[in-house]
Each structure stands twice: as structure tokens, then as C-alpha cells.
């Protein structure tokens, strides 16, 4: 806010460098991978090409799409639940100081417990159907969302609230027209972090409780005949989809309604 200039931070690098360099690094990595597998003479660990063939095989069997959809469905369900509960909860706790003092310690105790630690509990409560991984995704993402919404309310510049009050707007209007938009950038960042964690957790959850999804693919391929080409295929898919999700959410941060909150 202090600098009056219009500066959309020029990075000064040409698109050739921004796209070409990462591709170069990836190619280098693939070559290194291939060469080390060949030199080691391992017949269990796959070369990049074997992994690609494994992915092709999954696609032909119709499992590729099925597993990806299954994992994405679980993440979406658990994550939407976390958004619906976490954002209102965070905003309310951030706004009412007494509620914050009452509930924040409890949140801070629950937050550092890894969702993986909840797996036995989830199995106990939900058995081995879809609700168990969805519950774990929910747990993993609800805390980062709540905490970021809470902090966002507490960090609102007091001048916005005073200016709005000066115009005589009521509580509900204040929330709708000032508190919500003022916190949106930080809440969105919380959402992006939570989605990353949720994707991490879905894979772990699927290793135990269910019989579909990318996490299941990894464990199943290992158990059924040491198919490490499929294990690594699962890993590669998880990474690529994770990247895709992050890029998608980053697009949201480009909207004018929130861009002001990211230091130009």
C-alpha cells in the first residue's frame, strides 16, 4: 500500500527460459533415472519407459480413469466438507475474541495430529467404505482452512472496518461487504495449502481402507506380484495430478477481487 507505482513485478525472463529450463531438468532427471536402473541391473525397479508402458496398460484396462476419478472424488468430498465447516468456523472464531480464546487451544492441540494417526479411528467408526478416507481428508484440510480464515479476520486492516462502520452499515452487511472480501485472499491461500495436504492424505488413506484409487493402486501393485512399474506409475500420476490441482487453484488468485492481497 505504501508504493504508489503500478508494478506487476516483472520477472525479466523470457517464456523460453521459464518453460525450457524446467523441461530440461525433467529430461535430465529421466535420463539419469534410466541410466542408473540399467547400470544397477535391477529387474524389479522400472525404467521410465517401463513406467510409461505400465500407465498405458492401466489405461487399456480402464483402471487409470477409474482410479483417478475415485481418488479425486474422495478429495473433493472431504475437501468441500472442510471448506463448508472451516471457513465459517474460522471467520467466527477470528471475529469474536472470547470464542477465539475458548476454542483456539483445542484447535492447536488437534491440528498437529497427523491424519494418518486417525486411520485406526476412522476404520473403527466408518469401517472400510468411502467414508473413512473422506473423513481423513476432511480432518487434514479443515485445520489449515480454519486457521487461515481465523488469522485473516484478525489481520483485517482496522481502517476498512472503521470506514465501513462510518457509512452506517449493519453487522450482516459489514460481514458481506467488508469482512468476507477482506479475508478472501488469505482464505484462498489457506484453501490452496489445504488442498495440497488433502491430496497427500487421500493416497495414504486409500492404502488401508478401500479397493480403488491411486493409493490403492500403489499398495495393490506391490502386493500382487511386485509390479513396481505400476507402483511408480501411481507415484508419477499422483505428482502430476497434484501439480494440476495447484496450478488450477493458483488461477483463482489472479482474480481482481483477491489479487490486491498478494503484495501486487
Amino acid at each position, binding site marked *: *500500500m*505504501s508504493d*504508489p*507505482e*503500478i508494478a506487476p513485478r516483472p520477472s525479466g525472463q523470457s517464456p523460453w527460459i521459464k518453460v525450457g529450463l524446467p523441461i530440461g531438468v525433467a529430461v535430465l532427471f529421466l535420463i539419469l533415472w534410466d541410466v542408473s536402473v540399467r547400470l544397477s541391473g535391477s529387474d524389479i525397479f522400472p525404467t521410465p519407459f517401463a513406467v510409461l508402458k505400465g500407465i498405458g496398460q492401466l489405461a487399456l484396462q480402464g483402471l487409470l480413469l477409474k482410479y483417478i476419478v475415485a481418488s479425486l472424488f474422495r478429495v473433493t468430498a472431504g475437501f468441500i466438507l472442510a471448506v463448508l465447516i472451516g471457513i465459517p468456523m474460522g471467520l467466527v472464531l477470528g471475529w469474536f475474541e472470547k470464542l477465539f480464546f475458548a476454542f483456539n487451544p483445542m484447535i492447536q492441540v488437534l491440528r498437529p495430529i497427523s491424519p494418518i494417526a486417525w486411520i485406526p479411528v476412522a476404520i473403527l467408526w466408518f469401517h472400510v467404505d468411502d467414508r473413512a478416507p473422506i473423513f481423513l481428508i476432511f480432518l487434514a484440510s479443515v485445520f489449515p482452512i480454519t486457521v487461515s480464515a481465523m488469522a485473516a479476520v484478525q489481520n483485517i*486492516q482496522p*481502517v*476498512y472496518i*472503521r*470506514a*465501513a*462502520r*462510518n*457509512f*452506517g452499515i449493519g453487522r450482516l452487511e459489514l460481514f458481506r*461487504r*467488508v469482512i468476507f*472480501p*477482506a479475508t*478472501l485472499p488469505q482464505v484462498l491461500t489457506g484453501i490452496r495449502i489445504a488442498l495440497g495436504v488433502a491430496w497427500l492424505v487421500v493416497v495414504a488413506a486409500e492404502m488401508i481402507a478401500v479397493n480403488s484409487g491411486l493409493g490403492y493402486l500403489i499398495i495393490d501393485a506391490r502386493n500382487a506380484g511386485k509390479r513396481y512399474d505400476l507402483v511408480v506409475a501411481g507415484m508419477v500420476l499422483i505428482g502430476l495430478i497434484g501439480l494440476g490441482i495447484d496450478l488450477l487453484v493458483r488461477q483463482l488468485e489472479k482474480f*481482481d*477481487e*483477491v*489479487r*490486491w*492481497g498478494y503484495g*501486487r
Partner: protein
Amino acid sequence: MSKPVVDLQDVWMSFPGKAKGEAVHVLERVNLEVQEGEFVCIVGPSGCGKSTLLNIVAGFLQHTRGQVTVEGQPVHGPDPRRIFVFQENGIFPWLTVHDNICFGIRRDDPRRDEIFRHYVDMVGLKGFENAYPRELSGGMRQRVEIARALASSPEIIYMDEPFGALDFLTRLKMRSDLIRIWQEERKTILFVTHDIEEAVQLADRVIVMSRRPATVQEVVRVDLPRPRNLDAPEYLALRDRIFNCMGVSANVGGEAAKSEPTPSGTHRGA
């Protein structure tokens, strides 16, 4: 003289201090009257409490003792008929210039669009209606805030060092624009600044505050026609009088003025 719109009688203000039971006295026995349509500037050394005073008048802070009356009513909180223009710029960064200026206009006002166009034009932001604050310069953002204040048609505007963060040339331009707008609108303006030149260029009356705990040290009437000639001897004399009053010489480094007694002997009660 008619009844003042802003009327402060024996206003005191203290904040709780660091140590228990200890209070920091900020304002002492402040008496101040502002007439309708008047442009009044409050100057004083930095940290003297002039900003606190404005926040009390606007209803953002509760004073400790005394009476604060605006338009015949004691002040209990902020009021849409009196709009505050903030030093740190209070326009909403998530709204366009248009939406910011319209913030205080009632949604069902049939003249909403007309009012908007009038004020966006008045502050010289035509063509920037759909820009966001981050795309504007500091001066333009301050214009948006002034337009937003005017568009809600308040009776009084409180301004707390609104040009403090701007560069010198922008500040000069903003001052002359503010005077032009004030002459068109004839709102009552209570304007806090630490800049003596600014006060003498703008105000009908300049209220000089003392150091903390602050009280009104002197009231200087500036009976000069606008636009003011900044080289006129009358202007310079008034300016120097306030400089002297605040214990500094207009000539930087001149120690002589310091030892001279203040022109009007209205020292704060010891």
C-alpha cells in the same frame, strides 16, 4: 454568531498507561467550535493528540471527560452524516473505483449513477471507473476516498492528514483541488495536519495545539482570499506566527525565534 456544528467543551482524554493505575494524558481542557461550512485545520507537534481529538469528534474514540456535541447531539459513535477520510487510506482494495465511490450511496437511490458520475468527475478520475486501487497512484487513491466521502452526501468531513503520505507536488495539487471542491460543496471540513503551510493554505481558521497533554494553544483566523498567494506578506506573516507559536522558526536553523515569547500569551494552564 450562529450555533456551532461541532462543539467541544472542556474535553479531556487519557489512555491507560503501561504501569497499573497510571494514565497517559493526551488531551486537556480542549474547547473548540466549528461553524457550518467552515474549513478548520488543526495543527500541532507530532504525537500531540490532534489525531486522537479528531477520532473523538468522529465517534471512533470515547473521551474521558467533557462534552462533545455535533449538530446539537452528543457523539456516541460514527455517523454516516459525518465521514472520516483516513490518513492510511481507507478505500477498499477489493472494489473498483466505481464500487468504492458508490459504497456509501443507498442502493435504492435513483440518482445513484448520477451522483457517482458527478463525483468521479469532480475528483478527476474519469476513465478510471473500473480500475482497482492497486492500479492507482497514492494521490488517485486519496481522491477516490474523498469522492467516496462526498458521494454519501455528509454534512461534515473529517480529514486526518489525508495527504501525509503523498509526495510534495501531488500534495500541492491535492490541496488546490480540495479547496475547489470545498468551494463547490460548502461542506464543513475539520482537517488535521502537522504541516503548517498546508493549514494556512487551506483553512478559514487554524487551531494550534500544544504539546502533550494537548490543549488549544492558539486560534489563528486566515482571512485571505482563495486561491491564496503563497508569496503574499499577509500569508507569510500568518504562517510565521504559527511557526513561532509552535516554538520553531520559519527559517530553518534560526535559533532566534525559540527564545522569543509566543506572540499571544495563551499558554496552557500550568
